[in-house]
Structure formats: structure tokens, C-alpha cells
């Protein structure tokens, strides 16, 4: 009990059930001032539930929540959490898209009231953005809907650190770097260290093991609603973390012998709209082609360009969207309907959808993708984020189309899901399907046969896997135009 550090809040045997599902079970975990606590686990492990309990948006139904030695479990809520300086940046953006950046700041800070609140809100958010993301390029009067997703995420994060007469002790960052490119993510992680060294407390949830290991002081590993390990970050390695989460880390670097598939007629041969030197992006049958580079440098535009060409030419194509909420799922539909919607032409019998065939298709892909759900007739929003993404993959793969476009689909997806998906991709490619894959994660490029690195809307590098190195890609992404 007599810890040297000051304990802000402590869970003791805390549990939470949703119907028959035990989302949390006997969680005991303390949050200290001046510490960055990492929380890791695959989707459905209970991280989000635990954080919602901490933020006061979910009421736990077992155990104790000690604040200053007092059990506040029964009256703990959002207001009380905020009174104790606990704030949360949720994975799903909680900004109001129709409001400006400053107005969204006001929503978070009750202290910004009375005359001149706008000016104060503007100043507060601008200062905070500057502190965390120097050179952010966001104006406080920008409407959130007009900002790209990365900048929205920056606003969301900066907003949580604005304090106008309100206590600020602990900030929960749930996948804060998922929409940020590497440079901005690094800025954030540096800020997290500064904040912690100043006596603040951070709970960091991330699937990027590297940033967890380098940023956190302690890491708690969760599995099936329980905290299975809490250790100083220094005691963990990449491999041991993954092992703890229950997904054996197979050495990904096994390096299959590389066979170029660059022959025959390319399925895709498209030059980016802003390309000056005639360099084109090509993809050959059976190839997985990666589009790399910093986020927002024209990769998505190229995918759209290809998509339009194919649709106009009535050639089959399927897209796996990155922004699940806005481009991907039909939230009111069941999982099965979400999967079958792209394949309706095959499921038609006499002008109507054949329900038997639809169910068969859904069940087949549930098995192939390992979608974890009691029934495919559940609404898709009942799935965890990773499983929703699996469903979107299933939707694209269930079509007979020879070309699949992927727009950074692994954003915020757990390691286990990723592995499942990578394996499926490789199998499908071996059958002759072509993949055009935009990814923000460098590790993923090793699954590609050929990589194009984008910068400023142009494909600046064109590398086969045999020549691919991380240094090469970073150089291509960041280097100024050589003379």
C-alpha cells in the first residue's frame, strides 16, 4: 500500500457483464500519477470496456473502485470521473463533425463559459495543439467535418488535454496513433512522455507494439476480460508481449523465396493524377501490390482512380474501406447482409435474393475469416472493431472479382486478426487474385510482392519485395526531391 508513487484510482476485483458475456472479470489494476500505463490485448479482450468503466460511461457491477481509499463504485459516473481529472480519448471519434474545433473544445470543457468563451476556447485549443503537434496546420475555426481523419484525431487528442479551471490527472488514449502518420505519432508519443514526467498519468492503448514498448512505464496485458500480466515495460519484448496476448508470434521474417509475378498483362496500369514522370502503378495477376508512404500522400486517391476506371469499364473490382464507420459498414444490417451485399448478383434466384445461398455464403466466410460471433444474423455493430473489419474483408473476398483494393484496412485491428487476414490474402493471391493495398504500417509491406512508395501524390519508388528494406521506404517517404 505504501507505494512511493501516488495512486489516483484503483480497481479491485472489478467486473462487468453484458447479459451472458463477462466483459470484465476480477480486474485489479492501479493507476499512478507520473506513469504511462500501457494496456494491450486483442479485440474483445476487454480493454475498451475497462476504459469505459474508468471514464465513467459504463457502470461496473462487481468489485471496488477505490479513489483516495474510498470505494466509489456505486456512484461513479462521467461527472465524478471528470471531477477527479480523468478524461478519455475514445477510439471512435467523439467530435461533433458539424462544429468547429473551438466549439468541440467547449463541449469537453465546462470551464469555457460566459462572455468571451469563444476566444478562450480558440486560444486554449490552439495552444494545446501547438504543444502536442507543432506545425499541425489546424485552425480553431475549422469545421471538423472538413478536416481529414488524421487531423480530427489530433484535435480529439489535444482537446482532452485542455484544462480551463478543471483538474487534469489521467488521460486515456485509446489507439491514438491509428489515424496518424508516423511523424505525428512520434510527436504525440514524445508529448506523452513530457506529460508523464510532469506528474500526469496516461493510459495508452495501442496495437503498435514498438510504441508501447518505447513509451510506457508499465504494461498490462489483457485477455478474455482479465488482466493477465502487469510488468514494467522494460521486462517485455516484442515477442513476449505477443505471447502474453495469446497469439504465438510466428517469426514473420521467414522469407519465402521470392518469385516475381510481373509477367503477362497487368490487371492495373494507372498513373497517379499528379505524376509528372510517367511512372505508373502496375499490378499483375496474383500479385499483392503495396502502396506505402506517409498517410495522405495520394494513395487513397490512386485507389479511387483505379476503382472509377474499373467500374466505368464494367470490370469487376471490390474495395475494403479504411474508414469503417463512414465508408464500410451498413450499421443497421446484420453481419450476413453486410457480407453478402457485394455478391448479390451471385445470390440472385429469379430476381430475388436466395436466403439459403446468402446464409451459406455468410457461414462460409465466418469460418474462413474466423469472425467471432454467436450468429451471423446479429447486427454488425455488435461486433468488435477487428471483427467488423474481418466482415468487410469477407465482403470483398466473397465477390468473384479478380481485383481487390484495400484502403488501409488494418487501422486499429488487433494482431490476431491481422495474421488471419494476411494468411487469407496470401491464399487468395495464390489463386490468381490481385490486391492493391494501401497501408500505413511498414510491417505489412513484407506481405507485398511489389511496393510503390508515394510522396506528394506521386509514386516515387517502385520496389519488388526482394529489394525492399525499411530504410528504403523511409527514405522514399521523407526525402526531398533529389535534384
Amino acid at each position, binding site marked *: 500500500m505504501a507505494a512511493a508513487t501516488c495512486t489516483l484510482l484503483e480497481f479491485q476485483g472489478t467486473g462487468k457483464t453484458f447479459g451472458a458475456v463477462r466483459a470484465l472479470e476480477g480486474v485489479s489494476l492501479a493507476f499512478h500519477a507520473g506513469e504511462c500505463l500501457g494496456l494491450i490485448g486483442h479485440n474483445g479482450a476487454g480493454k475498451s470496456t475497462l476504459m469505459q468503466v474508468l471514464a465513467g*460511461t459504463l457502470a461496473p457491477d462487481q468489485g471496488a473502485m477505490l479513489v483516495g481509499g474510498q470505494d466509489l463504485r456505486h456512484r461513479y*459516473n*462521467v*461527472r465524478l470521473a*471528470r471531477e477527479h481529472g480523468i478524461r478519455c480519448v*475514445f477510439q471512435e471519434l*467523439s*467530435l*461533433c*463533425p*458539424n*462544429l468547429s474545433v473551438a*466549439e*468541440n473544445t*467547449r*463541449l*469537453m470543457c465546462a470551464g*469555457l*463559459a460566459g462572455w468571451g*468563451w*469563444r476566444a478562450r476556447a480558440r486560444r486554449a485549443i490552439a495552444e494545446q495543439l501547438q504543444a502536442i503537434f507543432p*506545425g*499541425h*496546420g489546424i*485552425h480553431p475555426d*475549422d*469545421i471538423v*467535418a*472538413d478536416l*481529414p481523419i488524421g487531423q480530427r484525431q489530433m484535435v480529439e487528442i489535444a482537446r482532452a488535454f485542455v484544462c480551463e479551471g478543471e483538474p487534469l490527472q489521467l488521460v486515456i488514449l485509446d489507439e491514438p*496513433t491509428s489515424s496518424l*502518420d*508516423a*511523424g*505525428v*505519432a*512520434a510527436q504525440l*508519443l514524445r508529448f506523452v512522455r513530457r506529460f508523464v514526467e510532469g506528474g500526469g498519468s496516461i493510459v495508452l492503448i495501442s496495437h*503498435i507494439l*514498438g*510504441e508501447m514498448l*518505447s513509451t510506457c512505464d508499465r504494461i498490462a496485458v489483457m485477455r478474455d476480460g482479465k488482466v493477465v500480466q502487469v510488468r514494467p515495460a522494460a521486462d517485455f519484448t516484442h515477442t513476449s508481449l505477443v505471447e502474453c496476448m495469446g497469439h504465438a508470434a510466428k517469426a514473420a521474417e521467414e522469407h519465402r523465396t521470392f518469385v516475381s509475378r510481373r509477367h503477362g498483362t497487368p490487371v492495373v496500369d494507372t498513373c497517379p493524377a499528379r505524376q509528372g514522370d510517367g511512372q505508373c502503378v502496375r499490378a499483375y495477376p496474383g500479385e499483392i501490390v503495396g502502396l506505402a508512404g*506517409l*498517410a*495522405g*500522400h495520394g494513395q487513397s*486517391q490512386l485507389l479511387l482512380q483505379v476503382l472509377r476506371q474499373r467500374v466505368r469499364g464494367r470490370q469487376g473490382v471490390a474495395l475494403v474501406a479504411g474508414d469503417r464507420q463512414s465508408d464500410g459498414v451498413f450499421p443497421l444490417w446484420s453481419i450476413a447482409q453486410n457480407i453478402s451485399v457485394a455478391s448479390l448478383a451471385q445470390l440472385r434466384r429469379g430476381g430475388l435474393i436466395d436466403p439459403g445461398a446468402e446464409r451459406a455464403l455468410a457461414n462460409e466466410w465466418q469460418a474462413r475469416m474466423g469472425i467471432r460471433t454467436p450468429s451471423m444474423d446479429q447486427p454488425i455493430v455488435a461486433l468488435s472493431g477487428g471483427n467488423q473489419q474481418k466482415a468487410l474483408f469477407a465482403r470483398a473476398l466473397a465477390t468473384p472479382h479478380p481485383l481487390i483494393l484495400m484502403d488501409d484496412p488494418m487501422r486499429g485491428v488487433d494482431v490476431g486478426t491481422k495474421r488471419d487476414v494476411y494468411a487469407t490474402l496470401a491464399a487468395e493471391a495464390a489463386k490468381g487474385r490481385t490486391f492493391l493495398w494501401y497501408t500505413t*504500417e*511498414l*510491417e505489412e509491406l513484407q506481405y507485398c510482392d511489389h511496393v510503390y512508395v508515394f510522396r506528394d501524390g506521386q509514386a516515387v519508388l517502385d520496389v519488388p519485395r526482394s529489394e525492399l528494406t525499411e530504410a528504403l521506404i*523511409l527514405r522514399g517517404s*521523407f526525402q526531398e526531391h533529389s535534384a
Partner: protein
Amino acid sequence: MNASNPLPLAATQRPAPRERARLLRSALPGVSLAVLLVAIFIMQPRAMSYLGLNLMLNLAVPIALATMAQMLIITVNDLDLSLGSFISFVACVAATVLGPHPWLGSLALLGCIAVYAALGALVHGRNLPAIVVTLGMSFIWMGAAILLLPSPGGAAPAWLQGLVRIKTPLLPLAIFVCMGIALLMHAFLARSTLGVILRGAGGNPQAIGRRGWSLLRIKAGLYGLAGTFGVLSGLFLVGLTTSADANIALRYTLLSIAGVILGGGEFVGGRVSAVGAVLGALTLVLAGSLLSFLHISPDWQIGAQGAILILVLALRAGVNRLEARP
């Protein structure tokens, strides 16, 4: 994989075209109104006078008030299909009860506002589609109006008639009232912290709820406020017409929706503008005048009015596309 090397940031400058397009979009309602006014003044110079403006615009005040009511409902992604019959009902109350029994009449009107607030609570609490609830309510209001005033008639209280006919200096009362409504509501919705929360409830209700505000109270409050504007609209209308009729304002339902949309509002997402909505209402009213001055056959007028609406919306779509261009 977090590279710790200092990286140049992409897109640090606010893109200028985006800014320009947004300005254009917010200026669109004002510009279309100005174009319309100029066309009317050229066509009918007589309109460019105190009397002319008064004649063209005094019936615009109740429409502007109705548009404001509709806008408040649209703020939280709902639609009020009962507004026209509600305003008709208010007009009937004002023309029958309010004169001889001021207290009873006022009580009835306050009751109407309470019913509106209760509707908001019902729509949110039971998670019902507002369109269906208000469609049902439209029949209830209309039935109540017919019960109250089976055949056209009644008389608005003299003070009400006097109030809406005040001769203001320089410009007609209608213009001052419209400006007043627009500025007041703009200050409330766009400048006050409460307004930010109300609009936020339209943009991302979950976030507002998660932050600890009661969506029930927000919806009930907005509906109540909408009811208040509906009552004001009905009172103003009956003051102008001096007597009522159970279906005196039925067309206000669609006019008010069109006004909000013309004014730059959107059906979902809490994107509304009070100033735009008033301008939109005025545009609709003046479009009618213009068509009448053009001697367009009555059979074509309603179509031509629709064409003007589509034209303005097409312009907006164009501006939006301009905005989306990277």
C-alpha cells in the same frame, strides 16, 4: 515502428480553396436573395418602396418564424411534418379564444408549447421516428382546429392586429422582425455555449450523451422552442389575416422545410444556419412574387417555384464539390 527522426509535416497550410468554397457556401442564401430582389426591382420598380416591401414581405414573417421552428427540429436530425397544421391550430385559438378570454387563450398556447416539448421527449425516449410522430400529430392539430373553428371565421384580438401592423420608420416591420429573429437565433445557436451543445447533439449525439448531457432534455428543449416559434408564427399570421381557418397554414410545413434547406441547412448532422434559414424563407416568398410579376401562368408557377429551389440547391451542390476538391 515509430520513427524518431524529425519529420516534415504534410499539409501545414490551411488550403485556400477550401476556405473560399466555405465562404461561398455560406454566402449562397444571401446572394440568391439579392439576385431575386434585383430582378423584382427591375421588373416592378414600384416594389422598391416602403409600401412595396411591406406588401411583398409581411406574409414572410410567419413563414420565417415557421422556418425557424423547423430549423430547430432539423438541428437534431428530425423533421416536423405537423408544423403547418400546428400553426393553423394556433391561428384558430388566437382567432377564437384569445380575444374574449385572454388568460384561457394564453394558457392554451402555453399548453401547445408543452405538447411540443413532450413530443420531443417522446421521440427521444421511445426512439420513434419523428416523421411518423409528427405526421400523426398533424392530423390531431388539424382535427382540433376544425373542432375549434368548423367554418372559417373568428377575429384576431385587436391588440394583435395592431401589433403586426405597426408602421416602423425607414423599413417595414417585416424586415426588422426578420432581421431580429435571424440575429437573435444566430447569437443563440452559433455564439452561445448552449447553442453549441444543441448543435452538437445533432452532429454526434453519442458524444454529447457520453459527455454527460441529457439528450432527452436537449430534444425536449429544442422541440419546446420550436413550438414557441410555431405559436409566434400562428399569432403573427392571424394578426395579418385578422381571422383564421383550420387549414390556413398547411403549406407552411413544406415551405419551412424548403426554407431551411435553401438557407444552407442539411437534413442530418446538425448543420443549420439561423440567418440562412430566414434568408431562405424570404427567398421562397419573393420567388412567388417574381413569378407573379412575370405573368407566369398559374399552372406553371408551382413548377417554376420548384425549379428555383432546384437551381439554388444545384448551385450549392456545385459549391460543395468545389470544396471537396483536394
